[in-house]
């Protein structure tokens, strides 16, 4: 999958979690802009993990603050 494909796929996965319909750009942050709490993060990460058949450990999650970083990380993970 290209980064654009990964982006499109995760965009559909995030819809049910993006309750306020925040417009998502690369710089959109999960904790700040999207107001994700730890439970929402877990559920959202689990959706991505299942879809791409990857593991995003908590250590990796700690490095991911915004949308652009997430797409890049998932693209790299599903490639390896």
């Amino acid at each position, binding site marked *: 999958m290209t980064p654009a494909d990964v982006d499109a796929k995760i965009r559909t996965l995030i819809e049910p979690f993006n309750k306020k319909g925040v417009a998502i750009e690369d710089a959109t942050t999960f904790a700040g802009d999207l107001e994700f709490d730890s439970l929402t993060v*877990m*559920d959202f990460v*689990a959706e991505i*993990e299942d879809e791409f*058949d990857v*593991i995003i*450990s*908590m250590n990796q999650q700690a490095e991911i603050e915004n949308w652009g970083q997430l797409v890049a990380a998932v693209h790299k993970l599903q490639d390896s």
Partner: protein
Amino acid sequence: MATAMTDTITAAEPVDLLSKFDPIIQTREQLLAAGVEDPFNLVMEQVLSPTRAICNGRDTILLGTYNYMGMTFDPDVIAAGKAAMEDFGAGTTGSRVLNGTFRDHRDVEAALREFYDMDHAMVFSTGYQANLGIISTLAGKGDYIILDIDSHASIYDGCAMGNAEIVPFRHNDVEALEKRLKRIPEGAGKLVVLEGVYSMMGDVAPLKEMVRIAKENGAMVLVDEAHSMGFIGEHGRGVAEEQGVLDDVDFIIGTFSKSVGTVGGFCVSNHPKFEVLRLVCRPYVFTAALPPAVMASSATSIRKLMHGGNKRAHLWENSRTLHAGLRALGFQLGTETPQSAIIAVIMPDLEKGAMMWEALLKEGLYVNLARPPATPAGMTLLRCSLCAEHSAEQVQTILGMFERAGKAIGII
């Protein structure tokens, strides 16, 4: 010159490292301004028995102390501690691996091996340190720890200290555990960390399936049985024993500060290389060993728990009665059925929870007020833990207190 120096001083604006806690200070002040007694600053002026104390000046029934088997005032437990203090002094002033291993440290480890029928036992200064030490030492950089998202803080802290890759899965979700195990790179070290009883809601883990799946996928398994020792399973060895998988668990973690009635933590195991952990586990090496009185009391208590059948039966009776009674009154509880000696009463929010906690305290009942981030899903809970020494009458009295307080606060 003088001016330059002044400039330098004013330029270095100090950053108050405590500022990051301002929101917590604010929440607390709001709570106290509403006239609520501080739930996190209770003082027990006198402790009358495992189930009664004078708290903030009131005669109070204790329903939130994890003193499941009521061993704190057992005459044999107290006598053993007194004798050890007379004979060995007040403290050890040293690490277990230097001058801190006395006769009774060895004896309490022998008592644990007898209790669990296992080859090895290692005693830590607290249960927190047992998790911190064992988990961080077992799983290091490049290894994977797969753990339930609702795991205790000591488990998470052990994970963080060891630098392993941390992979959480949804609470008690067998399928989520299996999926994650299968995705871990081949050849990596894997430790699955589970709890027998989860202390916030008092629910039990499906260890039978989870341990099997962990083993099928080549992982080692650690189970924290802090809240089950002494009264779950045929010999009181915990949920793993009750579900028939104790032999497949590599490491059991436990504590003396609940059913045993003292303080301290431990790990028991049949692993042939277990003893090396005494040399490499930093929270074991770099801290002082527990006082001899604590060790002697603990050893006596553990051996008495091996024969505590009647007390266990009464504890379960208490748990069932309180659970059914609270449900009948209309309270929302953490579990559909009583699964342990913990019964969590779910509060609508923190404010109502704090008011209810205070109303109960004024009735003469102490329970734990538990709130985020310690609780799952941002819930506020009134957590009740029963004791084998609560009489049937006390449980009825407790239900009356809940009814009056619940109606006064408008929760039921």
